[in-house]
C-alpha cells in the first residue's frame, strides 16, 4: 500500500529539482568549510558544477513526462523547456559574476546561494499544476530576489529598491492568497485541471466570487511580470540591484512568471478567455506604451533598460491574449531571445560603467565615442540595441514578428498596430546608445577605464553570435517552442 503510494507520486520526475536542492546544501557546506571571506570562489564552482548536474538530470528525464505528486506538479514539454532555459540563465549569471561582485563590494557566498534558491522557486513555478505549489514557488523565488536586490548594503538605491520591492511584493502576495481562497471557495479545488473542468461545466453562469478570484490571481501575475499599473516596483528595484542581478531579474524570473501565467490561464482559466480579453487588452496597451514613454526620458542606460523591459512584457501580453498555440510559442521564443539580448546589453553596460559605487552611474555619456575606443565592445552593444529595437536581421525582429503576426492571426489587428507603433517609438532610446557610440566625438579626459572580465567577454560573444544566428535562421528555435507548448492545449 505504502509502496503504491510512493510509486504514484513519481518522485523520479522531479529529479532535477532534487539535484538542485542537493547542490544548494552542498554550496552552503562549501561556504562553511571555506576560509572566511574567501568562500565565493569555491561556492561558485560548486554551483556551476551543480547546475550542469541539474541540466544533465533534466535531459535524462526528458522522456518521463506526466503528473507527479498526485497532480500537484506537471512535468511536460513545457516544463522541460523552462527548466533548461532557467538553468541556463542562472548558470550564465553565476558564471559572469565573480569579478563583478568584487567590484560591487558584495563578495559573499549568499549571492550565489540566493540565485540557486531562486532557481528552485522558479522550477516549482513552471511545473506547478496546483495553485498552492505555484504560491510556494513564487514566494521562494521572491524572497531570494528581495535579498539579492538589497545586497549592495552600502548603496542607498539598493536598499531603497529592495525595500520597495519587498513591501509591494508582500502586498500582492496577499492578493494572490486571497485569489486562491476565492477560487477554492467557488470551485472546490486548487488544482488547475479540476478548476478547468469546473469552469467548463458552469461556463455561462459563473459566480461573481470566482471572477474575483481569477481577477486577483491575474493581478498577482501582473505584479510579478511588472505590467502596468502594477509595475511600480520594477524600475527602482532594477536600478538599485547589482547589475548582474538586474540582468537576472529581467530575464529568468520574468520567464518563470510568464510560464506560470501561461499555464494557469491557458489550462486553468482557458474557458474564460473571452471574459478576460478586455482587461488584458488594456493592460497590454498600457504596458507597452507607458514603459516606452518613460524610457524615452532616461539618462541612465540601466534605467532605460529597466523601463524598456516593462514594454517588452507588454508585447508578451499581446501574444498571451491570442489564447492560441501560436501566441504561446511566440512568447517562449521571445523570452529566450529577450534573455539573450538583454543579458548581453547589461554585460556591456557593466563593462562601460565608470564607477559602480556611484548612485547615478550608467550614463549615456559614458558611451561617447565608444565605437572608436573599443570597436568590438561597441559593435556588440549595437547588435543588442538593434535586436531590442527589432530591426532585421536580428533575433529581436523575429521575436516581435511572431508575436504580432500571432496577434493579427487571432484578429487583434489594433493591438498589433499599437505594438508596432510602440516599437517604432523605442527606436529613439535604443538608437541613442548607438549615436553616442558612433557619432559622438571621444572626450578622452572624461573617459573611465573599461571593466573587463574574461568570463563576461565570452558570454557577450556568445550572445552576439546567437542574436545574429537566430536573426538569420529563427525557425529551429520556434519549432522547439511550438513543440513545448503543444502538450499544453
Amino acid at each position: 500500500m505504502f509502496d503504491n503510494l510512493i510509486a504514484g507520486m513519481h518522485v523520479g520526475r522531479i529529479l532535477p529539482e532534487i539535484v538542485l536542492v542537493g547542490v544548494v546544501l552542498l554550496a552552503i557546506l562549501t561556504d562553511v568549510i571555506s576560509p572566511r571571506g574567501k568562500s565565493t570562489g569555491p561556492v561558485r564552482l560548486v554551483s556551476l558544477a551543480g547546475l550542469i548536474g541539474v541540466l544533465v538530470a533534466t535531459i535524462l528525464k526528458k522522456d518521463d513526462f506526466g503528473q507527479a505528486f498526485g497532480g500537484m506538479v506537471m512535468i511536460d514539454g513545457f516544463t522541460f523547456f523552462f527548466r533548461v532555459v532557467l538553468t541556463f540563465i542562472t548558470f550564465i549569471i553565476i558564471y559572469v559574476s565573480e569579478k563583478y561582485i568584487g567590484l560591487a563590494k558584495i563578495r559573499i557566498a549568499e549571492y550565489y546561494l540566493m540565485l540557486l534558491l531562486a532557481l528552485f522557486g522558479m522550477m516549482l513555478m513552471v511545473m506547478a499544476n496546483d495553485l498552492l505549489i505555484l504560491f510556494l514557488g513564487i514566494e521562494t523565488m521572491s524572497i531570494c530576489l528581495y535579498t539579492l536586490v538589497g545586497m549592495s548594503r552600502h548603496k542607498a538605491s539598493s536598499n531603497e529598491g529592495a525595500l520597495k520591492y519587498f513591501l509591494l511584493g508582500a502586498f500582492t502576495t496577499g492578493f494572490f492568497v486571497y485569489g486562491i481562497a476565492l477560487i477554492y471557495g467557488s470551485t472546490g479545488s486548487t488544482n488547475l485541471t479540476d478548476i478547468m473542468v469546473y469552469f467548463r461545466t458552469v461556463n455561462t453562469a459563473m459566480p461573481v466570487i470566482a471572477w474575483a478570484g481569477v481577477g486577483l490571481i491575474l493581478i498577482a501575475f501582473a505584479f510579478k511580470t511588472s505590467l502596468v499599473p502594477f509595475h511600480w516596483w520594477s524600475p527602482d528595484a532594477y536600478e538599485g540591484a547589482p547589475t548582474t542581478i538586474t540582468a537576472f531579474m529581467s530575464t529568468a524570473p520574468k520567464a518563470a512568471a510568464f510560464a506560470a501565467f501561461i499555464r494557469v490561464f491557458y489550462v486553468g482559466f482557458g474557458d474564460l478567455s473571452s471574459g478576460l480579453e478586455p482587461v488584458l487588452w488594456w493592460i497590454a496597451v498600457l504596458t507597452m506604451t507607458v514603459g516606452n514613454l518613460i524610457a524615452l526620458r532616461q539618462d541612465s542606460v540601466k534605467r532605460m533598460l529597466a523601463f524598456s523591459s516593462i514594454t517588452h512584457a507588454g508585447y508578451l501580453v499581446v501574444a498571451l491574449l491570442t489564447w492560441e498555440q501560436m501566441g504561446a510559442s511566440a512568447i517562449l521564443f521571445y523570452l529566450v531571445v529577450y534573455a539573450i539580448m538583454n543579458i548581453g546589453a547589461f554585460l556591456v553596460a557593466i563593462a562601460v560603467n565608470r564607477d559602480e559605487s556611484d548612485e547615478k552611474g550608467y550614463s549615456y555619456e559614458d558611451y561617447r565615442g565608444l565605437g572608436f575606443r573599443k570597436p568590438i565592445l561597441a559593435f556588440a552593444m549595437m547588435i543588442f540595441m538593434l535586436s531590442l529595437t527589432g530591426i532585421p536581421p536580428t533575433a529581436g525582429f523575429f521575436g516581435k514578428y511572431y508575436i504580432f503576426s500571432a496577434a493579427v492571426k487571432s484578429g487583434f489587428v489594433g493591438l498589433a498596430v499599437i505594438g508596432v507603433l510602440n516599437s517604432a517609438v523605442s527606436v529613439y532610446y535604443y538608437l541613442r546608445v548607438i549615436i553616442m557610440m558612433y557619432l559622438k566625438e571621444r572626450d578622452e579626459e572624461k573617459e573611465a577605464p573599461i571593466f573587463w572580465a574574461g568570463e563576461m567577454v565570452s558570454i557577450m560573444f556568445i550572445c552576439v553570435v546567437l542574436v545574429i544566428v537566430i536573426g538569420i535562421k529563427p525557425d529551429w528555435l520556434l519549432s522547439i517552442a511550438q513543440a513545448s507548448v503543444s502538450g499544453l492545449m
Partner: protein
Amino acid sequence: MDFAVWIVLFPLIGLLFNTFFGKKLPEKIVGWLASLMIGASFVVALMITLKLAALDPEHRVVEVTIFRWITSGNLTLDFAFLIDPLTSVMILVVTGISFLIHIYSIGYMHGDSRFHVFFVFLNLFVFFMLVLVLGNNLPILFIGWEGVGLCSYLLIGFWWEDQKKAEAGMKAFIVNRIGDFGMLIAMFLLFYYLGTLKFTEMFPAAAHLWGHSVGAPAITAITLLLLLGATGKSAQIPLFVWLPDAMAGPTPVSALIHAATMVTAGVYMIARTATLFMLAPTSMMVVALIGGFTALFAATIGIKQMDIKKVLAYSTVSQLGYMVMACGVGAFSAGIFHLMTHAFFKALLFLASGAVIHTMHGALHKVHDHDTDPQDIRNMGGLRKYIPLTYWLFVIATISISGLPGFAGFFSKDEILANAFASEGVGYVVWGLGLVGAVITAFYMFRLVYLTFHGNYKGPEGSAEGLKESPPIMTAPLVVLAILAIIGGYVGLPPVLSKFHLFQTWLKPVFEPAYSAVHYHPHHLSHGLEWLLIAVSVSAAVIGLFIAWLMYIKKGLIAKSDDEQSGIQRLLLKKYHVDEVYNAVVIQPLIDLSRYAWKIFDAGFIDNILVNGTARAVRVFGGGLRRMQTGIVGNYALMIALGVILILAALMGR
C-alpha cells in the same frame, strides 16, 4: 542560375576584408578592392540579364534558393532570389551606379581618417540594396529595406560633429520607421489573407481572392499601408522631410543612396507589388495624387534653395514624385524607366556638385577662410572658366533632367506624362501637376547652373586662384555617367518614333499579370495627340529655361539674402514651414506626452501632489547613507489598489 548568389557575395567579401584589414592597408588598396568587388557584382548582373534574355519571355522568372529560411507551422519561407526582368533592371542600375560612385569616392574621401570605414559601409549598403531588389518574398525585401536604412543612417552620420546635426539626422531613421510600420502591418495582413508572403504565390492568390471584388476594403488598406512604407523610403508627401536633411552626409553618399538607389526602393516596391495595387483602384488614385503633388511641391521649394546640395535634394524628391505618379496611373514600366534615367543624371548632378564643393573647399582652404560656406551658391558664380569639364558635365545632366529633347530624361518623363494624360480618373489632374512641375524643374535647374557657373566669381578675395579641376579619378566616372545621361533614354523611344519600345517589352512579362488580374488595358493615344503632348512638354522645359535665362543672365539678378525675401518667396525659402509644422504637431506633443507620463508615473508627481510631507525620511540599516523616501511606497500601493479595484470591477461587473 546558381551563380546569381555571387552578386551579393562579392560586396560581402569586400566589406569583411576591409573590416579586418582595412585599417592597416593603404587607401588605394582599400578603395580599389571595395570598388572591384562591386565591379564584379556588376559583371554578375550582366550575366544574369543575358541568361534571362536567352529565355522565352514568358519563362523569364527564375528562383534561386540559397537556403531554407523559416519553417513554422503554415509559414515556409526560403531565403531565395527572384530573378525576372524587373530585378535585372534594378541590379544593373544598382551595381553599375555603385561601381562608378565607389571609384569616385576613392578620390573624394582621400585623406579621411576613417577612409576604410566609409568603404565598409558603402559595400554593406550595396549588399543590402541587392538583397532588397532580389528577395523573392516580402520579409527578405524588408530585411534589405531596413538594412539600407541603417547604412544610410550610418553614412549620413559619417561626418557629424555636433549634437544638432545628429538630432536632425535621427529624423531620417525615425521618419522611416513610420513608413516601416506601414510595411509591417501590410505584411501581417497579407499573410493573414493570403497565407503566403512569396511574390510568385502571393499575386495569383490575391488576384483570386480579390479579382471579383476589386477595391475591397482589405486590399485597399493593405496597399495604402504599403504606400505609407514607400512614402517613407522614397521621400514622398507626407514623409519627405528627412531627405533634404540627409544631405549632411558626404556627397558620394548623397549620390548613391539619396538619389540613385535607396530612395527608389519605394518605387520598386510599388512596381513589384503592382498586382496588389491594381486590385485597389482607390489606392492607385492616392498613389498618383501623392506622386503628382510631391513632384510639384518639392519643385517649388527647389526654386529658393541656396545650398547646391539642397536644390538637388528637393529635385530628387520631385523626380521621385514623377516615378510614384507613373505607378499610380498604371504605367509601372514608365516609372521604372524614369528610375533608371534618373539614376544616371541625378548621380551625375550630385557627383558634379561634389566636384564643385571639392573645388570651392580647396580654394577657400588656400586663403584660410573657414567661415564661408563652400556649398552656398551665393559664394560661387563664374566657375565655368575655372572648371570647364565639370561645367559641361553639369550642363549635360541639367539638360537631361529638364527634359529637353534627345537626352535620357526627356524620354522617360515624356512617357510618364503621356501615360498620365491617357489614364482615366485623376489622369488630367496629375498630368497638369507634372507639367507645371516640369516648367519649374527646368527653371530651378538652370538657375542653379547660371548662379554657380555663370556671372562673376563671388567667393572671398584671392581664393579664385585656388579653383582647380578635380582629379581624374573623380571626373572619369562623371564622364561615363554623362554618356549614360545622354543615350540612356534610347532604350525606350516613344511610339511615334519607333514601334519597338525595348524597355517596355523587356518588362512586359512582369506587369502583364497585374493588368490581367483586373482586365486592364492601357490606353493608347493617337499619333497626333502624342506629338502634341511632346510639343507641350518640350515647351514646358523651354519656358522654364527661358525664365531662368531672363532672370539670371539677361537681367543679371543675383540671389537675395534671406532677410530680403518676403511673401511667397519667404514661404518657399522656409520650405512651406513643413518642418516647423511637423515639430509642433508631431514631435513636440510626443515629447510633452512623455514628460507628462514621466511625471504621472514616476514618483515625483504623486509624491508632491498626494503626500507631500508625509513619512519623509527613515534611516535604514546600518549602512544606510542617505534618506529614503518610504512615503512613495505608500503611494505605489495606493496606485496598485486602484488598479485592483478597476480590474475587479471590470471582471465582476460582467
